[in-house]
């Protein structure tokens, strides 16, 4: 299992690099890969799975549009990656945002969660169920 993941990561890293290279000039690389809005790389898929497992939609909405918690479509346009990670891992307790640093799944997938939500915020990833890009 571990070997396969590592292998997949290498392949994907190359994919992202190539995607970056193919765009013109100094356009920023995206932390996710997506095809047709709902087919993503393995890491981004794990980001979505983490989102789902932590029931984030209860506060942020099934489409990240915000309910009791803020819209992540909007927030991810403003937050830096470090600010995002800090908020998710340490929470904003008084506002009702839990600290997820006690969750192994979140700690291990924080970059992937960022990738997924960034993709949602960019409008590149569609709401709802995702699948993995065929290898």
């Amino acid at each position, binding site marked *: 299992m571990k070997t396969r993941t590592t292998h997949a990561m290498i392949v994907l890293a190359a994919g992202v690099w190539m995607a970056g290279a193919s765009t013109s000039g100094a356009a920023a690389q995206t932390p996710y890969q997506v095809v047709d809005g709902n087919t993503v790389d393995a890491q981004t898929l794990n980001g979505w799975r983490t989102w789902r497992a932590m029931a984030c*939609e209860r506060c942020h909405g099934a489409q990240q*549009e915000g309910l009791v918690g803020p819209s992540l479509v909007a927030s991810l346009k403003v937050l830096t990656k470090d600010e995002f990670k800090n908020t998710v891992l340490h929470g904003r*307790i008084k506002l009702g945002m839990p600290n997820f640093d006690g969750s192994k799944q979140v700690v291990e997938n924080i970059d992937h969660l960022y990738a997924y939500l960034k993709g949602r915020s960019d409008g590149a990833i569609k709401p709802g169920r995702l699948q993995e890009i065929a290898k």
Partner: protein
Amino acid sequence: MSFQTSLKRWVPYVALAVAPAFALADSDTEKLSKDPKNWAMQAGGLANQRYSELKQVNKDNAKNLQVAWTFSTGVLRGHEGGPLVIGDTMYVHSPFPNKVYAIALEDQRIKWKYEPKQDPAVIPVMCCDVVNRGVAYANGKVFLQQADTTLVALDAKSGKEIWKVKTGNPKIGETNTNTPHIFKDKVLTGISGGEFGVRGRITAYDINTGKEVWKAFSTGPDNEMLIDPAATMTWTDGKMAPVGKDSSLKTWQGDQWKIGGGTTWGWYSYDPALNVVYYGTGNPSTWNPRQRPGDNKWSMTIFARDLDTGKARWAYQMTPHDEWDYDGVNEMILADVKVKGKMHKALVHFDRNGFGYTLDRVSGALLVAEKFDPAVNWATHVDMKSGRPQVVAAYSTDKNGPDVNSKGICPSALGTKDMQPATYSPKTGLFYVPTNHVCMDYEPFKVEYTAGQPYVGSTLSMYPAPDSHGGMGNFIAWDAGTGKIVWSKPEKFSVWSGALSTAGDVVFYGTLEGYLKAVDNNGKELWKFKTPSGIIGNVNTWEYKGKQYIGVLSGIGGWAGIGLAAGLQNATDGLGAVGGYKELAHYTELGGVLTVFALPGK
């Protein structure tokens, strides 16, 4: 039970024996609740009927009701429960931070205010908004069950703390929303956290000292559930029979029962003649049924327990192996009901699963189980011999399995009714029930348990019941003897407020848009008034200086209204828990206000 525990339990009794025992041992709550001028318990009385003998407001003059006074709680978010009135004083609460106000009815002056210091870390672990269902009163004390699981007794005169006790641990997802229940000399409380894998139980404390008297878990070994395998009965093959050894352990795989839910945040009732307390247990954890094969006893169960010892007399599991989040915590209403020509001391319960149950509350025998919304489709019927619902395969989220979206299940996880309590009028013999008319798609997935982290395991999408009137609620009248809907009044949104029936032939309920409505016994609308926010509180009534008052908390929130806070105008279809409710934003905003009504004049 260890020797030490039993010794501790004896100490207060020894002390009481020298005092006038009866006056000290029992609370005055039952007596106070029998005077219709008071509203001394959240449900009006021990039987959970939410009925008042007051009749100054009647079906002919209800149209003249007007606002007498209002009071802001100063808190946003969902306001459930309602005010208590004892004599010349009202006690009213707020959601987190759980403020309590004592208000003089004479001039609406605040006599005292109590605001507990609570760790805000509790906010993120409250599943469906930081609601609280109100305070309780006994023997000059006001009891508050805080969100952080602290149960506190306050001096009703000064608001000063008399005792407090921790009933759970928010660090593992345990919180509280329920009202404390005062029965005789005890205060009973439950626990919330079914979405965090807590282990449900109810606990009884001495009202005078806060000492724990007994604790009964919903799952696990017999002794921890206070179940006697030979004496605790359950409906089996058309009759009552002992539950037998390890009735819970046998229905779980491995240690799953330790994080198995069965929480207890509903409305309990008490029959003083039988000395039995009745309550329901919530969903088994997780929402992904494949991860917990078996019946998952005793989640989703009506329990009857001896008040003094906690020992279970009988238990009835309504939804074995839940696959839809149909918590069984809703109110247990005690009434005399005639079934097939025979009068029964009955218990009537409108379950989240869409079936209205009538049981013989003495024996626990199942008498009636019928759908109280025709939209209910997950089961064809309840088999009266086994007592088990007959699940329709297409709607079985276990059979369809994880990562498969089971569509068109009615009711939704909100249930055909959630905790918003119904009322029973002994005058008409009918139950008046606030209901949801909402269906769902349910897609379970595998989750790992981490203490204090969400343990849900399903993605939901909810919408109004298809091929119906388009609304998401009905207010209905129910005949519990036959299991039939007598009349049904459609509502645009779920009816999420507790109802009140009165000897004046007026029935009251609130709506999510914020209307307080009065209808007659036939469901004809007599009057309505738009309060400042959506109503998820319960309607209560009392009399002061010869005048009848009706009071209700408004303040949208809770599970149904939780989506109002932000961004809904940008939402598109398929929104999960609040998808169908986005329209609410056109009607109401947050804000907790108590509105009190009376007839003009005098």
